[in-house]
């Protein structure tokens, strides 16, 4: 640490940082545009000008750009000096020459960094008399609006999109005062992280298209700290509401998890909360496809009677909160409870948790970015845990920073660092069934079957542990290269997951992690599963796995099946689910959306989504994180755990008389493996008693008393929130005092998300209030690695049969987000992927379809030479009611009658 003097005040800062970073870390107000904590400095906007003095006798000083100036001990600068503030005002005046004065109708207005900086610098009156330049805008697809006339040419968009996120279809075109940022021609922005442009752009060039379509002024939003339900990464989000509608998802900074960025599934996938087909009332099926609304008390009493009658099985869900799962387990009893994972996924989760308990070194996203050599074994992270793929793009840059350091180029000098490194990168080895969209950053790629990938993984482990002969001809060059890279690294990282559906892949990942223990380095491991609470479900466990539960039901020994937020057709074979659901006399389903399972229920309870409830998800690191109610759900919708608690009370379980979600969490903390979740209890009532509630609305919130006056002139009573630290109000205190109480990022003068630095200990560091999460498995209590029995690989399929392999799509494989209109628009319709030689041999043409009896579905045919012969890929989640992929090889038949299904997008948009 060194000392610098800013406007005669002394500050302690880290040497080597740039001055802007240092000033902002101390909360000082210095305007900027092109600099971004994750993108570094380029010196383009010239907004962060300060005066630098040589020493205390220097009264004149020299104007310098803070973002491009390294901190040195004893440096003296001034932000307030008139020459500096005059220059900054002039700079804004230049930027505003061509910027439209459309703030009142601009989607960015009120949350616009340019607006904030303009006010901050004091530029008010326009002196430029010329006309403004105009551009044509582009249609960039369903996610993002493009309004180029507002551009201030800060270059953040292309630097983020191309340099940081690896996109190649957004460019800087032209020169002088006619710089244009867009695509070569209209079209969907292809990068999976395009939505971050909305937050990266300091003004209204790139804005959130779905939000614009249901626009609310930013200061009228009511927000809560939330966690993305889209996958197991658990990115922190701000969920924002107005008029009972979830309006948008914004990034909520978390230093160890998502940092400043989300994936497009997360940002645009929450629209399912608002769709018209949401289940809103308690319903009782009176005949096929016809539900009748039923009195809630009566329905609760009916189910309670069924529970009392006995012979009940409960199936939870990896997409439901930990609280809901705990409640159902408690209601039906642990030995009658299935955690909702498919049998195969449960097996994978079991292996993952055993590996985690043995390793203890679970990589957070921030740690993924700090690794120096990576093997990704089998998992298509871009499509199953997308934010990890974006992190990997930063991981491979670590060598750039080392090279830059050798050349005395500061780490934040972005163009210099990249130019000097010339693409030299850290080793990343990717083994996957098909090529992935991050192969461009990999040093080695292997495309093969999951079994072959597992064999390569075991070979890498054997090479690392010295149990394989170096000259063994069975070992691929890929395995040799990957093993050498991992062995030579200081921070090697193993990434894998349940994505291939093949347990051997996870066993191999575990073997590599164990082999790396012998090296004197800081190795780590990250294993992912598909859903937001897959790990919560895995940790909770249950007496029954999915197949046993459904088999019991199908055998007719079960009177009542209670399913919480789960579509069973995604968890077991279609035949088994059909048999079970046909057989069970009473099917009770709690869910938010109409699923194939809901369609067959006898009684349906409307479940609250993540936006309408408070709960806990456990992410891939076993990090338990809470999401808070953004708005109280309308109609009869309630969190599933609450319905289950009501039922339990009627049954007579007084311990389940939970008033608040904290009570459920406290109960959860009593379960083995979940003890630490107790730390997340927020004591909402306590805060209410102390009048220490944090407001969900910004101080600029308007029209609270009048917002519904068009419907009812009586001012509604303010809702009291006893559950959470938050209030439904703009009144309150403690914004940012703790992370779990940061419902939005705002600070006086900083209305945009740029204000987050005011809540960070230092720029890019942890939040001042802590991160509000807890790791359930840590390095403290390590167990031994399992003795691996090494499962047997699949036999080659006989002629004419195919092993089906799961493929994934960021837009489509996730159940909930597929119901969000913009995601549905990007999702493809279902297809089956074959090796072209197989397709030829069997006469499967693209014009006709292929039928799979076991799945009861027909698919369009696509071919890819990377798919191994005898294997066929199916994208998970795109086909309804197909059941999970059969484990055994299946027969595929040409289906001449096949017609492509109607575009799911058109379908869902028409419905929603």
């Amino acid at each position, binding site marked *: 640490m060194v000392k610098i003097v800013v406007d005669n005040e002394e500050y302690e800062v880290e040497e080597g940082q740039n001055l802007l970073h240092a000033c902002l870390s101390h909360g000082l107000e210095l305007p900027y545009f092109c600099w971004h904590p994750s993108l570094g400095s380029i010196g383009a906007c*010239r907004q962060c*000008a300060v005066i630098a003095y040589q020493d205390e006798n220097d009264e004149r000083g020299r104007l310098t750009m803070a973002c491009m100036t390294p901190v040195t001990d004893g440096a003296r600068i001034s932000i307030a000096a008139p020459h500096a503030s*005059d220059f900054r005002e*002039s700079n804004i005046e230049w930027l505003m020459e061509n910027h439209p004065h459309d703030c009142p109708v601009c989607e960015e207005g009120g949350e616009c960094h340019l607006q904030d900086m303009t006010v901050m610098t004091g530029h008010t009156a326009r002196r430029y*008399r010329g006309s403004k330049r105009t551009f044509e805008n582009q249609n960039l697809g369903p996610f993002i609006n493009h309004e180029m006339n507002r551009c201030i040419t800060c270059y953040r968009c292309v630097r983020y999109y191309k340099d940081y996120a690896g996109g190649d279809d957004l460019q800087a075109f032209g020169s*002088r005062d006619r710089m244009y940022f867009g695509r070569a021609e209209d079209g969907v922005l292809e990068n999976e992280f395009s939505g971050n442009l909305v937050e990266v752009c300091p003004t209204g060039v790139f804005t959130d298209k779905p939000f614009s379509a249901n626009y609310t002024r930013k200061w009228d939003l009511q927000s809560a700290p939330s966690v993305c339900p889209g996958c197991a990464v658990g990115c922190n989000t701000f969920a924002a509401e107005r008029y009972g509608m979830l309006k948008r998802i914004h990034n909520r900074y978390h230093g160890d998890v998502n940092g400043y960025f989300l994936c497009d599934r997360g940002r645009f996938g929450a629209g399912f909360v608002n769709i018209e087909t949401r289940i809103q009332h308690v319903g009782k099926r009176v005949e096929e496809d016809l539900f009748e609304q039923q009195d809630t008390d009566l329905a609760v009493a009916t189910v309670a009677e069924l529970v009392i009658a006995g012979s009940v099985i409960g199936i939870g869900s990896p997409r439901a909160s930990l609280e809901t799962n705990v409640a159902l387990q408690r209601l039906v009893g642990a030995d009658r409870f299935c955690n909702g994972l498919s049998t195969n996924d449960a097996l994978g989760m079991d292996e993952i948790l055993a590996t985690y308990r043995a390793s203890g070194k679970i990589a957070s996203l921030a740690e993924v970015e700090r690794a120096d050599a990576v093997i990704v074994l089998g998992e298509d992270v871009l499509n199953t845990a997308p934010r990890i793929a974006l992190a990997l793009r930063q991981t491979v840059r670590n060598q750039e920073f080392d090279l830059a350091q050798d*050349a005395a180029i500061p780490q934040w000098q972005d163009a210099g660092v990249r130019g*000097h490194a010339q693409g030299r990168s850290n080793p990343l080895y990717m083994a996957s069934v098909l090529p992935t969209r991050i192969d461009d950053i990999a040093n080695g790629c292997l495309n093969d079957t999951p079994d072959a990938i597992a064999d390569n993984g075991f070979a890498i482990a054997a090479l690392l542990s010295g149990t394989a002969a170096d000259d063994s001809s069975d070992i691929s060059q890929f395995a040799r290269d990957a093993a050498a890279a991992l062995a030579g690294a200081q921070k090697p990282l193993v990434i894998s997951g349940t994505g291939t559906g093949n347990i051997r892949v996870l066993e191999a990942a575990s073997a590599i992690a164990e082999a790396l223990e012998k090296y004197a380095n800081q190795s780590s491991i990250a294993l992912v599963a598909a859903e937001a609470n897959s790990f919560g479900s895995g940790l909770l466990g249950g007496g029954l796995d999915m197949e046993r539960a459904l088999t019991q039901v199908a055998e007719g020994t079960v009177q009542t099946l209670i399913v919480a937020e789960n579509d069973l057709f995604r968890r077991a074979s279609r035949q088994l689910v059909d048999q079970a659901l046909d057989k069970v006399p009473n099917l009770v389903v709690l869910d938010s959306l109409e699923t194939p399972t809901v369609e067959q229920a006898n009684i349906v309870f409307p479940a609250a989504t993540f936006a309408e409830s408070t709960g806990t998800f456990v992410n891939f690191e076993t990090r338990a994180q809470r999401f808070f109610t953004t708005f109280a759900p309308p109609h009869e919708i309630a969190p599933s755990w609450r319905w289950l608690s009501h039922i339990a009370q009627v049954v007579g379980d007084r311990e389940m008389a939970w008033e608040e979600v904290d009570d459920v969490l406290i109960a959860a903390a009593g379960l083995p493996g979940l003890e630490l979740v107790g730390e997340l209890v927020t004591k909402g009532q306590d805060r209410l008693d102390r009048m220490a509630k944090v407001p969900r609305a910004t101080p600029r919130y308007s029209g609270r008393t009048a917002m519904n006056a068009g419907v009812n002139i009586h001012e509604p009573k303010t809702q009291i929130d006893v559950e959470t630290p938050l209030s439904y109000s703009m009144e309150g205190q403690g914004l940012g005092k703790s992370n779990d109480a940061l419902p939005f990022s705002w600070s006086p003068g900083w209305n945009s998300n740029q204000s987050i630095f005011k809540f960070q200990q230092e720029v890019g560091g942890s939040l001042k209030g802590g991160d509000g999460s807890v790791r359930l498995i840590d390095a403290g209590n390590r167990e031994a690695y399992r003795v691996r029995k090494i499962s047997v690989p699949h036999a080659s399929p006989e002629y004419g049969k195919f092993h089906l392999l799961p493929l994934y799509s960021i837009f489509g494989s996730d159940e909930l987000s597929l119901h969000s209109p913009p995601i549905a628009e990007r999702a493809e319709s279902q297809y089956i992927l074959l090796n072209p030689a197989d397709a030829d041999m069997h006469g499967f043409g693209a014009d006709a379809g292929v039928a799979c009896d076991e799945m009861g579905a027909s698919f369009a045919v696509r071919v890819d030479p990377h798919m191994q012969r005898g294997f066929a890929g199916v994208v998970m989640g795109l086909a309804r009611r197909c059941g999970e992929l059969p484990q055994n090889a299946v027969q595929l038949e040409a289906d001449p009658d096949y017609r492509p299904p109607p575009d799911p997008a058109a379908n869902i948009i028409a419905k929603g």
Partner: protein
Amino acid sequence: MADLMTQPLLGRIDLAGGLVDLATYEANGGYQAARQAILRSSPEAVQEIVKDANLRGRGGAGFPTGVKWGFVPKEPTPGHIYLVCNADEMEPGTFKDRYLMEYDPHSLIEGMLIGAFAIGADRAYVFMRGEYHEAFTQLDRAINDAKAKGYLGEKVFGSDFGVELSIHRSGGRYICGEETALLNALEGKRAQPRMKPPFPPASGAWGRPTIVNNVETFCNVPGILSNGVDWYRDLGIGDDAGTKIYGVSGRVKKPGLWELPIGTPIREIIEQHAGGMQDGYQLRGILPGGASTEFLIPEEHMDLPMDYASIQAAGSRMGTGTMILMDDSICPVAISINLQHFFAQESCGFCTPCREGLPWIENMLIDIEQGRGQAEDLDVLDRNSAFIGAPGNTFCLHATGAMEPMLSALKYFRDDFVAHIEQGRCPHRAGGGES
């Protein structure tokens, strides 16, 4: 009569009566300097000679060439080392490099050969202005001729030293003349300048050690090695060494280029070599080294020696050494519009003051020229020019260069600006109106 000992740059062209081909070049001692250096000397010794000779960059900045060469790491990491010739001559009023390349291309090749040997470069590029078709034809032919004789490529002159020389023809932006923007353009990227550090000798083209020199600078090198340091230093009149190609454009009797001892006084260049002003025209202002240098005025500066230090002391820069003269028939506001239009158009669009500030200045000048100037315009013009023009306020020196003629015009010809605004028209035109 031309004499290579007093006119080492252009003398050969005069002797040949035009294009100097390889045979003529060699007949006049060509490639002897390179041959001697590569076969009998060492890179360090060559660097030392060029440093001692006090050769300074002829592209405009005047940085000592030998010192620059010395910045290449002595023990570089394995990989290419690049030598680049900046032949992107786009400074308005400047045409000296074009003349050298069109008529004596081998002197550039030999200079680059020696430079490459001195810094250990194995790849050399001539980054040439796209519009220079004839220069490209001649240099391309000369490179092929030199290659055929074993003067370029592997094992130059039979030694172990080798260098590949290629021409890169620019897509055409003024900013490509800026060293680091040139390197970006050479790499196929947007022609935007780079932040320094890293400096090109440490991390330049493709992240490798790179030296960039101007055409005229390279052409000086063979003579220095052939004739020695003392000869070269004695060529200059004042502190600077060697000769300089000076040029004059504007309403003089004989516009053109002349190779003269560096430090020749402005008066001598204009009156003796350019034949003085055309009859009926009075000299009002001199842009001494191209469009991006401050005005000098005949009342004060006619006897200044054209060398780096003297011109700088007078508040301007020698730049490329090719003067643009403004006579009394020209409206200073109109010439400023012309200049500022050029600079605004050639801004690369990277940093705010340059991208947005220059068009505003052009806009204000047009208003003033066309009689729409307002009382406060001069204050706005002063403030903007000062902010845009201060080195360091913008990312590179493009806008600084643009403001050199602007700030000096506001200083020396302020009355003209005031008269425009007060009269609501251009006083240089009978009825005002369009400029």
